[in-house]
């Protein structure tokens, strides 16, 4: 059993309480132990610059580091992306700059604390991916999320700016973890787009278009639910959907869940007590269970029917294949063909595969 310091942060105590519940619930099946930092304080998030200077924010975070260091030598895990970024930033700067460390320690001494730079601050996804590993996650899955289409929304601060465990431009850790749960991961270009963060409360009309783009894009790529690992993203994408619908004339009712909630469900834990799905404002439980049930009934059917893509007859399919071959690398021509036969990229792949495997043949000549 590997031990970590859990630094939940203020959001997880209130508006993201379902995140905390599910993070605590998945510890046991994954053979992890969370130890909460005693008497931790807020990291300052990204808006405290209004009232505080840089040194104050350093001291604020150094206090947490010092408390954790005095209580043992485990890594600090922050499920909240903002906590992770700020705590990590301070930790890195202190380690890199001994003079700054001395200055901060001088201030920490007011409370009899000191920090020596022995800890690492890590994001929950980092621990799940690198310490636990995909194989162990797969092993812990008892009820795979087969049939559930999930869009992994990474957001900003989950990987940026450090990129310690994932790419800052093209992240895949979240998607791979979701795939390990058996879910069908849909890729969507907006997964790194900013959700507006703390600006949402004060500048709502400026932030709404950002969220609209994200949800629209996820829906366009067929997502049943959007999964994230940041409390701010979850809140902004979820609770303002009604307001966005009103202001921008959309019809969103898309469940936004934490990856840990999906993990709890996939590990066969109680969806309310462990997964806290009853705390989602846009109901998520029904959507998830419906997708899982649908997949379960589909599996029972014998899977030996000939490939049927949409309503195309085999002749039309073969004609489409010929047209696609003729189009070759010409993107415009390929697009025209796809439009003509109403094919999506998946359909194109299926047709090509069927011809390769010999299940789809042209009229014999």
């Amino acid at each position, binding site marked *: 059993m590997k031990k970590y310091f859990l630094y939940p942060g*203020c*959001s997880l*105590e*209130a*508006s*993201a*309480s379902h995140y905390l519940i599910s993070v605590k619930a998945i510890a046991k099946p994954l053979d992890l132990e969370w130890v909460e930092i005693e*008497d*931790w*304080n*807020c990291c*300052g*998030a*990204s*808006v*405290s*610059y*209004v*009232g*505080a*200077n*840089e*040194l*104050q924010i*350093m*001291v*604020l975070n150094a*206090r947490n580091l010092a408390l954790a260091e005095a209580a043992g030598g485990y890594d600090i895990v922050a499920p909240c992306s903002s906590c992770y*970024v700020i705590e990590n930033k301070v930790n890195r700067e202190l380690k890199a700059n001994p003079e*700054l460390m*001395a*200055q901060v320690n001088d*201030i*920490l001494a*007011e*409370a009899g604390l000191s920090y020596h730079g022995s800890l690492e601050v890590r994001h929950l996804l980092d621990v799940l991916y690198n310490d636990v590993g995909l194989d162990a996650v797969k092993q812990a899955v008892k009820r795979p999320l087969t049939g559930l289409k999930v869009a992994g929304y990474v957001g*900003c*601060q989950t990987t*940026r*700016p450090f*990129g310690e465990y994932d790419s*800052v*431009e093209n992240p895949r850790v979240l998607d791979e973890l979701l795939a390990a749960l058996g879910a069908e991961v849909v890729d969507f270009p907006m997964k790194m787009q*900013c959700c*507006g*963060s*703390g*600006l949402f*409360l*004060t*500048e709502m009309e*400026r*932030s709404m278009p*950002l969220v609209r783009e994200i949800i629209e894009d996820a829906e366009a790529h067929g997502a049943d639910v959007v999964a994230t690992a940041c409390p701010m993203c979850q809140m902004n994408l979820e*609770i303002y959907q*009604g*307001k966005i619908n009103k202001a921008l004339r959309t019809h969103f009712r898309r469940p936004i869940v934490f990856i840990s909630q999906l993990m709890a469900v996939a590990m066969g834990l109680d969806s309310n007590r462990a997964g806290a799905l009853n*705390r*989602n*404002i846009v109901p998520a439980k029904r959507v998830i269970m419906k997708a899982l049930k649908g997949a379960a009934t589909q599996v029972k059917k014998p899977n030996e029917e000939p490939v049927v893509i949409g309503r195309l007859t085999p002749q039309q399919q073969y004609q489409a294949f010929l047209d696609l071959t003729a189009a070759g690398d010409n993107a415009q021509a390929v697009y025209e063909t796809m439009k003509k036969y109403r094919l999506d990229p998946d359909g194109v792949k299926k047709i090509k595969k069927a011809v390769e495997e010999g299940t789809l043949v042209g009229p014999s000549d």
Partner: protein
Amino acid sequence: MENDTAAKTVPERGAEGSPAPKKIVKARRAYEPAFAREVFKNVDSGEEIKLCMQCGVCSGSCPLKKEMKYSPRKIFTMIRAGEREMVLSSPDIMLCTSCYRCKVRCPRGIPVIDVMHGLAHYALEQGFEPRHDSAQFGRKFWDNIYKKGRVDETDVAIRYTLADGLVPSIKKGLEMQDLGLQQLLHRRLKILPIRPIRGAKDLKKMLDKAAAAKHGRKA
């Protein structure tokens, strides 16, 4: 260099159908380093501006660029040009959502976010208020941390709502009430105020000492 060339605009072509007159804003004076020096000295992370080569990647990467009059790149050059008032009163220095896109893409590695936050902090200190609502919210947020050591989301939201007197408060409150109710129904809101952390008094002392030491990067 002419020291006081006024802002010039291309004379408008009155005829209908001609392309819209384009304003060309010229620098009002030659570069004036006094403000830049002030920024380097007093603004947290202010010295990083020295590295800027005006490539504009930060502006192109900003998710809120289209809401801005002055993009980060322009702000940086305005600092060099000595436009003190324009920079410190510009609402754009407080529009940052901290998405860190500019920071990871900047070819010179400038932490644009830290500079913007530093500038906003300095502007507020100097009596400017680039963005009223954000400033109010930030103040309440920091007050919570300073007094309790943690942020009580409910408390911050209420204080922020009540910050601007009766009429705006009621307006803001009505706008937000359904959100609060939803959160409450789903047990994502605390009704009772949170208690300060045990080390709150010590934390206050430390923060005061850090404030007295002023700009931390000097070490």
